């Protein structure tokens, strides 16, 4: 242990070494910073992003400042925020997207928690939980209308069993859209949460158990803090998906009233009144609201522990 491993360099060796230490080649210096030819593999993706996201976004942004009916650069925005019917769409959409994202996240946690370990039939149950991804909004809407509608099975059953004497109004209003968004959004939240959960070393919970922590304490003090950053990301994705709601708001909602969401207004401006400029302005408002919510959530996330969680993932 006390043996000396490093030998001092022979006299005269050091100056020679430093004299011949030329600047390494540019390629090596770039490689040190992780820049090499394999980065070119990112090129198609970058081109795709510029052509299909950056360009349309910037085009739309400048279009929104050129109102068709004149009135200055901000006329579209003034028109949107000046009209209570239009302004209200922001709150209606938030009122749908935030609760839906919360419900999706909160529902995903216990389900993912229970299905993370191996058990008989795990694959079947996971498949069933993820299945709604394949349905698509229109099919989901169709199903909801048939099942929850005034003449649907649910109401028929409720009436027949005498639990209610008037059919419950579950479609063509807020709750229809809510249900549709939860059905299509849950699989995403579940899959994300599951992958975050399996990334947490199960040994940590065992350690907590040997330290006297009950099941509830283990979840509260070990699993939840390690899962929270992942939940924040899950919430953001879930929220963005729900905020852009359009088909289900039309099909199972009340597009003139309770579910008069912002994307309906953008669609109508652009493709029914052919006022592309106003349509773009509304799309920009949408983007701004989404960005604001996502930034708030990410700011909260940045205050959490986000390091290794010791697991396989």
């Amino acid at each position, binding site marked *: *242990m006390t043996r000396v491993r490093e030998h001092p360099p022979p006299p005269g060796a050091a100056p020679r070494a430093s004299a011949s230490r030329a600047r390494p080649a540019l390629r090596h210096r770039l490689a040190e910073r992780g820049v090499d030819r394999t980065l070119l593999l990112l090129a198609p993706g970058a081109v795709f992003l510029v052509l299909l996201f950056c360009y349309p976004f910037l085009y739309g942004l400048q279009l929104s400042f050129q109102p068709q009916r004149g009135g200055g650069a901000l006329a579209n925005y003034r028109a949107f925020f000046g009209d209570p019917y239009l302004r209200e769409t922001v709150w209606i959409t938030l009122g749908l997207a935030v609760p839906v994202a919360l419900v999706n996240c909160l529902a995903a946690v216990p389900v993912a928690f229970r299905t993370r370990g191996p058990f008989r039939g795990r694959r079947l149950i996971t498949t069933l939980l993820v299945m709604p991804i394949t349905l698509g909004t229109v099919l989901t809407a169709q199903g909801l209308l048939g099942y929850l509608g005034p003449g649907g099975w649910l109401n028929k059953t409720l009436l027949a069993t005498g639990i209610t004497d008037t059919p419950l109004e579950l479609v063509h209003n807020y709750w229809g859209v809510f249900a549709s968004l939860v059905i299509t959004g849950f699989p995403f939240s579940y899959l994300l949460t599951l992958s975050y959960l399996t990334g947490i*070393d199960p*040994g*940590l919970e*065992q*350690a*907590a*158990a*040997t*330290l*006297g*922590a*009950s099941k509830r*304490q283990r979840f509260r*003090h*070990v699993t939840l*803090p*390690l899962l929270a950053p992942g939940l924040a990301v899950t919430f953001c994705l879930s929220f963005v998906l729900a905020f852009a709601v359009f088909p289900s708001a039309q099909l199972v909602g009340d597009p003139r009233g309770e579910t008069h969401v912002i994307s309906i207004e953008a669609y109508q401006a652009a493709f029914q009144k052919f006022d592309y400029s106003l349509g773009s302005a509304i799309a920009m408002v949408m983007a701004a609201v989404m960005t604001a919510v996502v930034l708030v959530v990410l700011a909260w996330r940045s205050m*959490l*522990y986000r*390091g*290794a*969680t*010791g697991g396989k993932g």
Partner: protein
Amino acid sequence: MMSRFSTLGLDRVSRDFGGHTALEELTLDIAGGEFVALLGPSGCGKSTALNCLAGLLPLTGGAILLDGERIDSIAPERRGFGMVFQNYALFPHLTVRGNVAFGLKMARVPKADIVRRTDRALETVQLTGHAHRRPGQLSGGQQQRVAIARAIVLEPRLVLMDEPLSNLDASLRLEMRTEIRRLHQSLGLTTVYVTHDQEEALSLADRLVVLRDGVTQQIGTPGEVYGRPANRYVAAFMGYRNMLDVTVTAARGARLSLDLAGARITGLGRAPLSAGDRAVAALRPEDLEPAADGPARGIPAAVEVVEYHGREFAVQARLGDGRPVHFRTARRPAPGDAVELTADPERVLVFPPDVPAALGASRPGRRPGGSPRLRAVTP
């Protein structure tokens, strides 16, 4: 908080996984304050036994009794046993202090007591200066000490350690080994320690349990297991590197005369053997040495490979029939040299060629523990 016990009894503790028996009827009484090591290669069931003790794994048979009371169905959080995990399992989102204080916080100990006891535990493992770091910022040895502090701060009735040193480098391992023994001596905590390293087990434990394929091979003090291994398997695990097939030519009690490929040696029978029996002579390399010049009557061998080990040379040689034999010597032999090897008859342990799967009488229904030579090989 600390409640001592006088005995922790494992009564035929078994654990099956599917059709595979990981641990078979482990019976062991641990006295309060004792340091017991479970020793064996990976897959021998030692970690299974530890997890069963901790309550992390339900038993499939047998019982665990603490002073006569069954505890094997009690949840791990209510057993009051501390555990040090192989990968430490430190909470990555908590500081060193947070990790150590975790158990006290869960037990709703008053704040002032938490601070005092955490400070003392950190002092014990010499980590006071690192209290505000996160586990990710610590070296392996420091993490390991946090894991120990976290377990001992609760003053558990029993500390379970699952290969706590296996992730450390050689010099740190020696240092931490001394540290663990020192902690055990100063705190007097009953400890069950799992390891695959015979040296670690011998140096730390008051008593050793040697396991193989889930079956207990030998329970004894380090001296007993080292000097008097119960069977050739334990012997091989305890550093008896030379396992030489011999034939018993004469037996006077335990004193046996043996024929080793024509050479004659004497040894100590570790099981009843009689003249004509085939047997295995177990010998440590350090107990076998080349005879001084002269008409020595030892085992003739030809030196093949010589390794320098500092104070001595480790030599691999070949017997007349080509079987390898290992010995140590202070003088450097040259490859190709002919040597005559001699050994103290007390140090030559003779076992029957087949390892009995269990201690004592064989039990029915056990998987065959016989030698692979007798098994038919189908391609």
